[in-house]
């Protein structure tokens, strides 16, 4: 399997008032296509920062990051947006659905930016919602859905542009363990179908799902990678 993600000596420094916060202090990570990775570590260890950089939401202060062989660390905002649009799907702890529009529209949102024709968008959104078991919730607003259902809508949204990588940031953090398990099942399924899955979590039972774990502590990766 080819190397999908390759990070070398990545650091991230935030200014914080007069001082600086060193969120990442030289991280080396390689992830192959189709892997199921858990990024774990205590809070403040830099796992969110690492996730943001992997997901091209943020750029490293120094170091190199190759995604699919391309140097992402030199890209501008629009190029990063294109990468996110085409290759990455995000799932957040708080779902982050638009509250005023139905489930299908939330799912179709990424396709708008991918310039998919309106009719096709809806058709495809419905198909994806069916695949996560929400075929009967297509026209529901987010506040008419349970937490687990909302997170499934969010997964469907992450899948809309058929990305290679799914990044889930504490995907079960706001769910009870039963609903959490359901979400993890879906992610495992996606892994089976060949998606590269990266879960960020501090919960053990979530992290256990990963086929490989990356431990972060004080901005460094512990153990070998």
């Amino acid at each position, binding site marked *: 399997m080819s190397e999908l993600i390759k990070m070398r000596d990545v650091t991230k420094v935030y200014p914080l008032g007069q001082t600086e916060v060193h969120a990442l202090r030289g991280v080396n990570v390689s992830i192959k296509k189709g892997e199921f990775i858990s990024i774990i570590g205590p809070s403040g260890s830099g796992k969110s920062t690492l996730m943001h950089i992997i997901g091209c*939401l943020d750029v490293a202060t120094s170091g190199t990051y190759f995604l699919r062989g391309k140097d992402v660390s030199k890209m501008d905002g629009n190029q990063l947006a294109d990468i*996110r*649009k085409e290759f990455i*799907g995000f799932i957040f702890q708080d779902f982050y659905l638009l509250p*005023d529009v139905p489930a299908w529209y939330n799912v179709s949102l*990424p396709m708008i*930016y991918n*310039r998919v*024709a309106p009719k096709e968008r809806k058709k495809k959104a419905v198909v994806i919602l069916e695949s996560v078991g929400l075929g009967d919730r297509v026209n529901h607003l987010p506040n008419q859905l349970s937490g687990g259902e909302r997170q499934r809508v969010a997964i469907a949204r992450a899948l809309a542009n058929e990305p290679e990588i799914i990044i889930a940031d504490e995907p079960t953090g706001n769910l009870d363990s039963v609903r959490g398990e359901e979400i993890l099942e879906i992610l495992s399924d996606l892994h089976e179908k060949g998606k590269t899955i990266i879960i960020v979590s501090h919960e053990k039972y979530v992290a256990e799902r990963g086929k490989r774990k990356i431990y972060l502590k004080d901005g460094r990766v512990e153990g070998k990678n």
Partner: protein
Amino acid sequence: MFSGFLLEILRSSVESIKANKLRSFLTTLGIVIGVMTVIGVMSVISGFQKYIATSFSQLGANVLYVSKYPWGFGMSREEWKKIQRREDIGLKEAEALKEYGTSFKYVSPSILRNMKMEKDDKEAEDVQIEGASEDFSRITNREVSLGRFLSKDDIKYMRHVCVLGQDVVNALFPEENPIGKKVKIQGRQFSVIGIMKEKGKMMGQSMDNTAFIPYTTMTAFTGKRISINIAVYAEEGKETEEEIRWILRGVRDLKPGEEDDFSINSSEALISQFNQMTSTFLMISIAIAAISLVVGGIGIMNIMLVSVSERTREIGVRKAIGAKSGEILGQFLMESVVICLFGGFLGIILGASLTKLISLMSNGNVPFHIPIWSIILGFGFCFTIGVFFGYYPARKASKLSPVEALRYE
């Protein structure tokens, strides 16, 4: 495909405005009032201009009136005194114009006096009696509907004949054909030789309460020492006005360098003078409306800034799923433009209603007329304001870093 995206952000703009109906409405109120003023003022003025134009054009297109007094407004007291001291214009001038004019053929004195007309026991008060020549019907493009107009011989032999306007016919001859019948004007007997075609109203006054008699006969009523008007038919493209000037300067013995002591008036000049005056008023109104629109625009900017900060999370999500800065900018710009255009739409409706109201209150004297360009201008204003005042908030939204936007609580 790009237009599909525009349609999408248009749609989402409408959705987000619908989600905040009251707020959007209050926000756009300044725009509504501004546009309403623009539309209202423009429509009333343009209606009024139309009304004035149609009224005065009844004096006859291409007709020049030589008079002692200039038509129009805005003269100073000194100018007015000077004009009053001018030598009267008399038949001498009319005859000279008729004789020497080369670029024009038709000349007629126009001596007006309101007098009483009688027929047996019926009478018509305050009829406008006009002393004119045989050319007058051609000059003013007015024709008889029955009988004939004044002839050269009528003038030459100072005949007591008259051509009646429709109102006079209605008053004196309700049931019989007046041709050949006798009427009395100020006690003197006249034979009716014709009836003029009906003309309607000008400035709310009937133009048909009138009678024409030979100007030579008219002087019997007025005496010769009276300042008259002379109507001249100016053919298209000829320097008639210049020629009239030179003939009159000759007749009135003006030396080179001396100012003209007569006025050459036309309905066109009067209309354009009137339009100039109303245009100034229009400009002032538009300036006031513009201030209201700018205030409205600031309101829009304010609410858009609130909206951007309320929806920071949404912006973060959109960016995370691949929206470019330009697309976020476009979305918020579209929202501000849509709010403004919505305000413009309301303003146009209210402005049109206002105009309708004014038209009704004036008994239709000011016609209900919304100029297309005022609507275009109204929408244009709104669009510009939407873009101008929406740009800063939209740019602010587009510049948000995705990570910070997602973290925003």
